[in-house]
């Protein structure tokens, strides 16, 4: 299965690089298209592009990590952010964050293997009266208790 996935990836990237005549000058254009296609630029994508346009993959890694527009990590379909500002912190945001990590079996900054959820923490989001604050996608949850985490996740 992974083999098929890889083949598919190679085909798509071959098309993209061809569009740019495999010209290393257009690396940034190629990376934009690739990220548009896959959502992010993991190591495999970088290695395949390196082979196609015949430059070292370390160069590509250098470029991907230089520009803030490019990311090597996939965001989940539902990105979860836990506010770790002072108000939320004193109201137990850390425990809430830990509960999310435990329930999803991922660490802060990671994405679940099925791509459904990703986790991150933020600085004060300006809703201190509702501390601790968690947002999932566009939706905001206030006064989140550790016991509520499971129920919140079951909404998705």
């Amino acid at each position, binding site marked *: 299965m992974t083999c098929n996935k890889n083949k598919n990836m190679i085909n798509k990237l071959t098309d993209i690089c061809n569009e740019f005549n495999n010209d*290393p*000058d*257009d*690396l*940034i*254009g190629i*990376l*934009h298209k690739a990220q548009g296609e896959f959502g992010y630029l993991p190591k495999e994508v970088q290695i395949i592009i390196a082979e196609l346009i015949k430059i070292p993959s370390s*160069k590509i890694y*250098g*470029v991907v990590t*230089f*520009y*803030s*527009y*490019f990311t090597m990590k996939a965001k989940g379909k539902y990105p979860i952010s836990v506010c770790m*500002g*002072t*108000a*939320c912190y*004193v*109201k137990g945001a850390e425990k809430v964050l830990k509960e999310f990590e435990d329930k999803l079996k991922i660490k802060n900054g990671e994405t679940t293997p099925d791509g459904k959820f990703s986790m991150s923490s933020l600085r*004060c989001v300006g809703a*201190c*009266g509702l*501390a601790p604050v968690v947002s999932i996608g566009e939706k905001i949850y206030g006064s989140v208790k550790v016991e509520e985490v499971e129920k919140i996740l079951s909404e998705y």
Partner: protein
Amino acid sequence: MKKDKQIKLALKNCGSIDPEKIENYIAVDGYKALGTCLGEKGSSEIIDVIKASGLRGRGGGGFPTGEKWEMASKFVADQKYVICNADEGDPGAFMDRSILEGDPHVVLEAMAICGYSIGATEGYIYIRAEYPLAIKRLKMAIDQAKEAGLLGINILGSGFDFDIRLKYGAGAFVCGEETALIASMEGKRGTPVIKPPYPVECGYKGKPTIVNNVETYANIPVIINKGAEWFSSIGTSGSKGTKVFALAGKVKNVGLVEVPMGTTLRELIYDIGGGIINGKKFKAVQSGGPSGGCLTEKHLDTPIDYESLKECGSMMGSGGMIVMDEDDCMVAVAQFYLDFSVEESCGKCVPCREGNHVLYQILNKITHGKGELKDLDKLKAISEVVKSTSLCGLGQTSPNPVLSTLTNFYDEYYDHVVNKKCVSKQCRALVEYKIIEDNCIGCTACKRVCPAEAITGEVKGKHVIDPELCIKCGACIEKCKFNAIIVE
């Protein structure tokens, strides 16, 4: 004397023509200048007109455009390039985006004129990926111009070929710097290199290259059409024409304005901007984004031109203009800009990479109430080092917000470090939340919302905030309907 306040040259078609139709642009003399150049003028003649007009770069540096073109025209090479810098990275500025979205053809026409004058047949627009509408309109405009024979092979039967392609940025402010921009166009990390050689000699792919800003190009066709003398009659002796600003912050009328050079800051803020909102008191105006400085009341009658703004410790910049009132803390403002520069430093040279970081940390210490008097001297000393030893314009200007606020608002810094007070009450660590006994009716709303359980009191009884427990989040103040809570 009151001057006619706004004159629209760069923005002349924005909002008045349909940017998606080339006919509309042609109907307002569009591509007439290109026709004149190809039909009647030699390249040196065009360069002479641009030189005589006094046009200077609108991207920040203010280099005379005609001279730049002349230098590029004199280098002999098998290929030369014309680049439009549409990376517009100054946070809060959107002059270039408005031109590209509202009048894309003007930029294409000007680039073709530039190509003809210096002997280039290829042009590139380096545009931020964050501007999807501008990208769409540019693509449409390029296709339409090619179809109409105004771009491509043998333009208007003159034998001159010129083609324009787009290249995309990827979210790095430093790529607005011309050598970093060229590196980025070549598919590399956008780190600046030492000049000279300047791009006019050795630029994209090692060939002579012109890099000009969007607004600079937007002035070219009108100069050709109306003449250098007409253009140079607008503005001051050293700065000709107009400048577009994105007026923002605490003024009544925010948005894009285009004023003749020489307009004073006061005219811009009060006559055009309508003054300060909510009847508050003006405190400062910041131009030039993270590279510029904060000017005060006493600078309000300064004419807006390259030299005058520089003399007062700010700069023209690309057109960001942020007005601040009594509620803005100048130390926090400096910290905000430093935060930006720390994030955006490419990391190539030590003074910029490390120096800005140290400046940021000291400012952070001050806004958190831990500053000492000697920190102010340190800020100054480090700023001078960063300015004089950094490689590119980013590091050479990033301490400007610190230096200008230190000079113009020294009292505010002094208050922070010695009296531990922030007059504008923006620095959380330096303020105290208090309940005015007489106003409190004991509704308990504040007590219930306080995340730190710092408020005590019985129903219908007077409430008090324990300053030891209070984390100064401000949640209580929003809840109190009786104006009983104050910040000191």
